[in-house]
């Protein structure tokens, strides 16, 4: 059983890949974003903040340049 566990973990690790900051060109494309319309994002955020007193969680940080 144990060797199988090790094998499973090793196979899972194969899927780990570090995307370097300079390799994020494809991830930065508009079609790779959770939401493509920035106005829609700010609109939703405004609704959430004013009506539900919540903020954040409007999507992932995106595949941008990893800066700021």
């Amino acid at each position: 059983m144990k060797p199988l566990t090790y094998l499973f973990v090793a196979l899972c690790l194969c899927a780990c890949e570090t995307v370097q900051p300079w390799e994020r060109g494809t991830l930065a494309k508009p079609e790779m974003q959770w939401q493509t319309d920035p106005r829609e994002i700010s609109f939703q955020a405004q609704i959430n903040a004013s009506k539900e007193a919540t903020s954040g969680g409007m999507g992932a940080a995106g595949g941008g340049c990893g800066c700021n």
Partner: protein
Amino acid sequence: MKPWALLCLLGLFALPVVAGVQVGQSAPPISLPLLTTDSAAELTLDSLRGKVVYLDFWASWCGPCRVSFPQLEELRQELGPQGFEVLAVNLDEFEPDALRFLEEVSVSYPVVRDGAGETPATYGILGMPTGYLIDRSGTVRLVHQGYRKSDGAALREDIIELLGEQAQ
């Protein structure tokens, strides 16, 4: 699971973390082909020794890079005669993307290309853009990550300070 096996697994996760070039270290050599010409002529960082160099890693898809280019061009126009130079290293996967960017935001400083991504790995950059301010002796004096419109003024001060120093 045995402790040593766990340690090995944790070690695997630590592998991608490589320390980059720090302030105070000498800038690793760069020799890359110029982007804007058809010739295979390479530009080396060594050839700029004696000048204060802002080494800028950029890509066309990076928003802050678009902000930085006009400001760096302005700094170069102003401080170039005193010995300031910008060396921009393009990291785009596809060269036409970079050329299209340069048509929109044209600059007079040299732009070289590293499609293989070897130099950013050597320098260990963590974000785009990353700039290295290198003094006349070839030592990294400032590492600048990201770029905001307001960064230009502080950068200008740093460059002027370094321009006042003599090469060692």
